[in-house]
């Protein structure tokens, strides 16, 4: 049991999830919020504050699970997520509001 608990942080950090966006699929980790990982893949997402209070980076979360290390100040519509501060916790599918 002790070994399991001590291994847990590393296991969590190594977790990789799939993010589906239209026909694209990218792999993300739980190390960083989704926004920076999307940008690294060359996907343009609108942003302003990058800390959860302006809601510019609000995108549709079609299915899957994300978590916020800190509760964002912006109002998050149901079925939406804030890319700048959400940590992806399972495979997810996202879409931009315009799609």
């Amino acid at each position, binding site marked *: 049991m002790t070994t399991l608990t001590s291994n847990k942080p590393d296991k969590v950090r190594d977790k990789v999830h799939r993010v589906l966006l239209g026909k694209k699929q990218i792999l993300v980790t739980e190390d960083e919020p989704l926004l920076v990982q999307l940008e690294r893949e060359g996907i*343009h997402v609108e942003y302003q*504050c990058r800390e959860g209070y*302006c809601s*510019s980076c609000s995108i549709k979360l079609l299915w899957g699970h994300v978590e916020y290390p800190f509760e964002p*100040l*912006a109002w998050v*519509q149901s079925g939406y997520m804030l890319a700048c501060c959400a940590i992806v916790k399972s495979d997810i599918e996202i879409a931009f*509001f*315009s799609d």
Partner: protein
Amino acid sequence: MSYSTFNRKQFDSMKEPMFFGENVNVARYDQQKHPIFEKLIEKQLSFFWRPEEVDLSSDRKDFQKLEEHEQHIFLSNLKYQTLLDSVQGRSPNVALLPIVSLPELETWIETWSFSETIHSRSYTHIIRNIVNDPTKIFDDITVNKEITKRADSVSVYYDRLIEMVSLYNTLGLGTHHVPEHGDIEISMRSLKKALYLTVASVNVLEAIRFYVSFACSFAFAERTLMEGNAKIIKLIARDEALHLTGTQHMLNLMASGKDDPEMAIIAQECKEEMRNIFIEAAEQEKDWASYLFKDGSMIGLNAQILGQYVEYITNVRMQAVGLDTAFGTKHNPIPWINAWLVSDNVQVAPQEAEISSYLVGQIDNDLSESDFDDFDL
């Protein structure tokens, strides 16, 4: 029911609605019905800045080098921003404080309005720095037809709510005759409806109108012109992002009925009217864009591109308050604006107070004697 600055009734403020309940008595924040407003206050306080922190000396030289039509764009935009913040620096206080019923929301309204007064002071700072006679510019705001047209549309909902609330406070519910205004029906329903539409029009002001003006300010800075001005606008944009979140919370809390069940019915009834407020504002902003660029465009921005941005940002804001989008433009035609709007690079040195994560007076009290063990004198 007249307003009292210290309501002597005993009641549980946790059970009051955001507006039109009891007047607030004790300004207490140990318990909060909607903790979000307390969080917004804290964030806003951490943003505190002063216009004089930004050096504008190179803007004066830049401004003199601008072509005439570019000076028209810059000054008209600045006049418009001055108008918007003149309204916002007082109206939330005048219109909303007499009817607010939660201490944390009351203080948020005051904190929000106060930050708008900093914006107003910064326009004076900018105008003083670029022209010899600021009077000419300020005086034109109340004379210029294009500007006064905008003043009407940004103040009409506020003014109606203020009139209705003052009738309610002096004469109570009923139909009252006001000379030159005719008969005005004051019912709880009509008051709440006026409130809902006011908050919607404030959201439009902060989330659409301001952003159109930001686009113009940053278009100059994209060409490395008027960069001091852009730095100030960046600080203003950071505040406005927080304010629009505040009004989005109010609108969504009202529409959900969690705060006041009657508000949910009103929100439903007003959906079409609210939609029209957004669409009308977008059309007005597009007309404004044509006025700005009437004598010529500038590199990177013209009436057409700015019009597309108006449509795009209106779609985004409508979606955020649960309305269907109204325009075809689905992508940001000026994606470079994000790099200017981003708040985390507002200042480079943390000791320069604007960095939001750098709070003045942060002291770590959690020390033990052993913390000094490796300390030799």
